[in-house]
Structure formats: structure tokens, C-alpha cells
């Protein structure tokens, strides 16, 4: 059986949707908790997190060619410590996936299905996700590719139609409250969303050429930064100071669109686009979790845990977070350092451990000669 491979384009697209899937819904709202007028600068600071992930990916691809992160951490840190670190990483992926599914449930419940129990929404979403994951990485990546032209068609239309209600004065004066609120908002965008790009390390093993992995992460991160900043500028410009009080400010910006007296409620298109991208994000994270389980527990296939793991995510989403405020509080006040430790410190630790191991091996070889 030939090994499944993904193209660079698929890799980049999947990473972009991994960030924008939830980022486009929650970043403006999360950043607006700290600053409204300067929220766009906080979104721009997303680039710092992207740079950190690019460096980690570059070092990882040099140290562990053709290995997923969970396989690499076991190789670098040994079977015991490596497995403990791998399980820690998988728990983080699981919690992230539960958070995303819960966000999706609440979003769909609030916007289009208010009378449907949220766990039913989650069940149907996970049904689609586990099917895609069960079929393999190529199906997940093709799904990401397939929705891209649809979203690229919808997003610019909504963007330009929203601009007619935009007031640039809502963004002025710049830095009136100093850098403190901007940097606090930047913590959410950097640590919570930019560090999610580390998920790419689990997919390096499927790339035809790992040499360009860091460059691909940089491209995905750069595009995500531009899009997030534009969306934040537009949202603040249209919604204004009310952004601070709204759960879905981007949705409100889109709801304002009216063309003549007959074309309105285009937010349905926005909801369709968001649900599609969230589907890709959950599928990518669930696939990464499944291949992580395969690496750590030496399973014969990722399919062993796909269905059972999907059910675990579905139940976990409802059980771990009782309400949207729970999710929001977790994202703002726990996730930043949690992701910093899991998505930056642990990969760096395994890279350093591998470097020490290789050096020791080289010294032993030289001494033997």
C-alpha cells in the first residue's frame, strides 16, 4: 500500500482554515475584551506567534524528516518520557477539538438552529468529521481544497458589501490607551490561535517534500494574519464600541448588509462559510489526534480510534464546557500559557533532546573509530 501524500497547497489551505475556522468568529470578540479601537493592531501581532511556529517547524523538519510530532517526541525523549509528553500533546489536541466543537454548537444554535439541542448539532457535525477522518488524510485535505473556492467566492462579496457601513473614525485615535490593552489582546491572538499552526508538525510526515514545510507554515500564517486583520478592521469599523459586548461581532457586521430594499440577511452565507471551515478545522485536529494515538499506542491504523475518538470529542464538548462564557473564559484565561507549553515548549524540548542525542551518538562513533 502506498503512503498517503498531500501537496503543499493542500497543507497551506488546511492550515489557513485551521486558524480562520474559529478565528474569524472569535478573534475580534476575544480581542475586543481588551481593546476595541486598536483591536486591529492586536490582530496584526498574530505575526509574532506565526514567526515562532515557523522557527519551530523549520527546526523540527531539519531534526525529524518524515516523522509526525508524536512519533518524533518518542524518538527524541525515549519511550517513557516521550510517551508522557506525547499523551500530554494529545490531551491538548483533544481539549482543543472539544473547544472548537462546543464553539460550533453554540454558534449554530445561536444563529440558525435555536430550537435544536446543542448536543444534536455536535453529533451531526462529528458524524461528518469522523467520516472524513476515517477515509484518510487525502479526503480531509481535499475537503479543505473543495470548500476554498466556495469561501473565496462568498467572503469578498460579504466583505465589500459590509464596507458601505464602515466608519473609519471608529478606529481613531490610534493607541489612545497606550500599548497595554493592545498587548493583552495580542496574547489571545498569538497564543490561542497562531500557535495552533503547530498542528502542521503532525502532517509533515505526509508531505512529499519536508524542506518547504516552514515556508508553507509562513505562507499560511501570513495569509491568516492579513485576513484576520482585515476582518477585525471591518468589524470594528461597522459595529463600533458594541463589539466589546457582542459574542459574534462579525456576524453583526454581515447582518448590516442591505442592498436596495430586497437583498438582506446575507449572514446565512457567512454562517455556511464558517461551518464549512470549522468542519475542516475539527477534521484536521481529529486526524492529528488519531495519528498521534496510532504512534503512541502502536496501533495498526488511525481508524482504530477514529470513531470512538469522535464520540469522545462529541461528549467532551458538552461536558467540559457548560456555556459559551465557559468557553470564552477558558480561551482567554487558560489557553494562552497552556498552548505555549504544549505547542512551543514541548516541540522545542524534543528538538533539543534529539540534538543532544545525535551529538552524543556522533561522539561515541568518533571514539570507537
Amino acid at each position, binding site marked *: 500500500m502506498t503512503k498517503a501524500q498531500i501537496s503543499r497547497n493542500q497543507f497551506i489551505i488546511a492550515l489557513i482554515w485551521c486558524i480562520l475556522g474559529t478565528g474569524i468568529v472569535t478573534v475580534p470578540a476575544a480581542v475586543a475584551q481588551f481593546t476595541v479601537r486598536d483591536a486591529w493592531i492586536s490582530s496584526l501581532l498574530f505575526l509574532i506567534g506565526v514567526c515562532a511556529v515557523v522557527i519551530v517547524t523549520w527546526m523540527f523538519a531539519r531534526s525529524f524528516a518524515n516523522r509526525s510530532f508524536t512519533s518524533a517526541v518518542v524518538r527524541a525523549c525515549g519511550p517513557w518520557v516521550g510517551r508522557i509528553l506525547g499523551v500530554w500533546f494529545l490531551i491538548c489536541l483533544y481539549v482543543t477539538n472539544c473547544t472548537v466543537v462546543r464553539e460550533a454548537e453554540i454558534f449554530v444554535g445561536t444563529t440558525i438552529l435555536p430550537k435544536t439541542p446543542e448536543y444534536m448539532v455536535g453529533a451531526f457535525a462529528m458524524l461528518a468529521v469522523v467520516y472524513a477522518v476515517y477515509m484518510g488524510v487525502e479526503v480531509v485535505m481535499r475537503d479543505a481544497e473543495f470548500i476554498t473556492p466556495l469561501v473565496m467566492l462568498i467572503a469578498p462579496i460579504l466583505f465589500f458589501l459590509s464596507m458601505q457601513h464602515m466608519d473609519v473614525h471608529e478606529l481613531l485615535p490610534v493607541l489612545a490607551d497606550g500599548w497595554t490593552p493592545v498587548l*493583552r489582546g495580542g496574547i489571545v491572538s498569538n497564543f490561542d490561535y497562531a500557535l495552533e499552526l503547530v498542528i502542521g508538525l503532525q502532517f509533515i510526515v505526509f508531505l512529499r517534500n519536508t524542506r518547504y514545510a516552514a515556508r508553507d507554515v509562513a505562507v499560511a500564517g501570513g495569509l491568516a494574519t492579513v485576513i484576520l486583520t482585515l476582518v477585525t478592521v471591518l468589524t470594528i469599523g461597522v459595529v463600533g464600541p458594541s463589539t466589546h459586548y457582542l459574542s459574534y461581532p462579525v456576524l453583526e457586521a454581515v447582518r448590516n448588509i442591505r442592498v436596495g430594499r430586497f437583498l438582506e440577511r446575507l449572514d446565512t452565507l457567512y454562517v455556511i462559510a464558517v461551518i464549512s471551515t470549522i468542519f475542516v478545522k475539527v477534521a484536521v485536529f481529529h486526524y492529528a489526534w488519531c495519528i498521534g494515538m496510532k504512534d503512541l499506542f502502536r496501533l*495498526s491504523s488511525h481508524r482504530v480510534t477514529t470513531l470512538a475518538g469522535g*464520540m469522545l470529542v462529541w461528549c467532551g464538548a*458538552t461536558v467540559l464546557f457548560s456555556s459559551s462564557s465557559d468557553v470564552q473564559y477558558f480561551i482567554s484565561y*487558560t489557553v494562552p500559557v497552556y498552548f505555549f507549553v504544549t505547542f512551543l515548549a514541548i516541540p522545542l524540548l524534543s528538538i533539543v533532546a534529539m540534538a543532544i542525542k545525535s551529538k552524543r551518538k556522533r561522539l561515541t562513533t568518533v571514539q570507537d573509530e
Partner: protein
Amino acid sequence: MIWLSLVASLSMVVIDWSSLRTAKRREVVLYIGLIGISFGMAVGYEMHLFSKVHLLAPIDALFRPPTKWLYHIL
């Protein structure tokens, strides 16, 4: 949620039946373990157990103070 998770569990076992028969014991144990945890979560949720028990409490206890400190020093 209990009924839905029960139906989902049974459907999964039916779908994976042929691969479970040839799977290693370790894989079967893991499979049953994951389904068991999920079903336990669903039962606990219906019994309102998780209004008293917060499963993310260890993660919150570990990472919330340093995150708040990070916000504080900025």
C-alpha cells in the same frame, strides 16, 4: 444524550466489527476504553454530575494563574 451515545456506540461496533475481530488485544481494549469513557460522560451529563465536577479543573489550576500573571505584567 444517553440514548444517542448508546446508538452511536452500537453503530460504531457494527461498523468496526470486521476490523475488531482481527485487531490486537491492545487495540480492542483502547477502543472499548474510549467508548466507555464517552458513554460515562454522557451518563454523567444526564445525571448533572458535571455541574459539580469540572473536568478541566487540573488544567485551569495549572495554567490560569500564569496566564493572569501574564496579563497583569503587561
